[in-house]
């Protein structure tokens, strides 16, 4: 099977700082992959390179067999890469309905009929448990609901690769359980790339885990392999040798 996403020697430097340094990465279709690592490990920069918000200094990105390294971000979205932001960035002054209508109206094939848009919006809101809140301004939703709206917008793009950047940050335990169910459901139709700090969520969801540290990939494997990996424990917790 061909990987959905491959990066070769992907790098990004800011001045002298190598935020991402020579990353070779590949992701199989249908997988749920978690990227973990300490703060400043380059996780967000790495996925920003994949979705095109940041231009790489080195290397290449291949999505579904096509070199997308120099493709502008909006084109990548059209090819099926959707990104949900780490810092919630829904359109605060627009209603939840309009927030979701934006991606829905773009992905609809047969014209922009009000009815078709309406059906698509209602479906995306229902899937994320936001039904009944369509007329609320997004900025007035609770934080957890704003995160869900962010996911609803990502879903409405009908992506082949959905990148979730710290989606459970700031959610309550109950909301996190609902979220895990939602991501499992999404994984039925899309490949999921997840940056996450909450290890419980990672262990429950991920098929494989990639650990980043200092802009490079430190380790990669199944959740069991990663939790037994000495290098990972070192990067996260430090070892007596450090002291």
């Amino acid at each position, binding site marked *: 099977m061909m990987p959905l996403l491959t990066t070769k020697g992907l790098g990004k430097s800011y001045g002298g700082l190598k935020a991402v340094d020579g990353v070779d990465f590949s992701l199989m279709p249908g997988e749920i992959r978690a990227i973990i690592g300490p703060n400043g490990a380059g996780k967000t920069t790495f996925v920003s390179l994949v*979705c095109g*918000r940041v231009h790489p200094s080195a290397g290449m990105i291949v999505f579904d067999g096509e070199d997308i390294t120099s493709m*502008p*971000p*909006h084109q990548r*979205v*059209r090819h099926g890469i*959707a*990104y949900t*932001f780490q810092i919630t*960035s*829904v*359109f*605060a*002054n*627009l*209603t939840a*309905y*309009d927030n979701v*209508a*934006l*991606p829905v*109206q*773009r*992905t609809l094939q047969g014209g*922009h009929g*009000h009815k078709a*848009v*309406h059906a698509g919006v209602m479906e995306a809101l229902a899937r994320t448990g936001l039904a009944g809140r*369509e*007329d609320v301004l997004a900025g007035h939703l609770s934080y957890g609901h704003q995160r869900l709206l962010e996911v609803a*917008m990502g879903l409405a*793009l009908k992506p082949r690769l959905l990148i979730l950047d710290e989606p459970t940050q700031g959610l309550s335990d109950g909301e996190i359980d609902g979220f895990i169910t939602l991501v499992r459901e999404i994984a039925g139709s899309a490949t999921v790339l997840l940056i996450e700090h909450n290890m419980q969520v990672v262990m429950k969801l991920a098929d494989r885990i990639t650990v980043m540290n200092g802009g490079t990939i430190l380790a990669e494997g199944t959740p069991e392999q990663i939790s037994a990996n000495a290098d990972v424990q070192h990067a996260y917790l430090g070892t007596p040798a450090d002291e």
Partner: protein
Amino acid sequence: MRHDGFKPAALHVAVIALLFALNFMLPDYHHGLLARIMVLAVFAMGYNLLFGYVGLLSLGHAMFFSAGLYGSGLAIYHLGWSVPAAFGAGLVSGAALSLVIGLLALRTTGVAFMIVTMMFAQVFYLSILYFAQWTGGDQGLVLQQSQRLIEVGGVTLDLTEPVTRYMAALGLFSVVLVATLFIARSAFGRVLVAIRENEERTKMLGYDTFANKLAAVVASGVICAASGAAYALLFGYVGSTLASVQYSILPLLWVLLGGAATTLGPLVGTVFMYYVIDVTSGYTSAYMLVVGIALILLVLYFPKGVLGTIRDRWVRWLP
């Protein structure tokens, strides 16, 4: 917002019907003034499309207005074109100019965009003065009555005749009002607002924001040019003052007063400004002082303009 289309549609029809009825009720002076206000409200609506919906503050829209003004005026004055052909020439001038300006100016944002548009408008203004041989320079050109007749199947419409002029102004105003309502409620309009709210996010939903902004600049430029062309044809005067920086600021004020990103705000703002000036200049020669104070009070107490504030506080469905 989900579209409950009935109330807004009824409101817009009512406004157009009211303006139609005023044709039969107003005394001569106000009748003439309102015709002019409707033409300039079209200018304000064009400005509002870019400023209100996309959030791009241009300080150079006088060039789009005068592209229409001179495009149609020169076609009549020098080439002897008919009124409809000259109006078309005005629209084409506006479309061509706004396309070029959009391609260049949209490489910038924020303050730089304001300055770049202002500079282009100054270039346009100075070019009008420089080519005085054809444009009449600061004297301008006057179009004669005989050049402002429309032949329609044996009937001659005289655009210098008050009722014909009023109805022509109302016709253009109504078409543009309905068009802006349609745009504001369309998928395109939703994207424009999204760009205003958060352009980066809009890109990440798969939209080519540059192309959408360019389309908005051209639509705005064409509407402003339609206003300029109508001004030349209905009032017979084509002059460089109408291309000066003052005419770039005025539509901004009209829109701010009436309410940015409301469909009827441009009309409300234009009527308001005109009548404040009209009434106060009857009492004092320092009428601009009164206008200034009125503007300050409005910005303090109605920061979103008259209709913007009404929409926020009372009438949520107002488009």
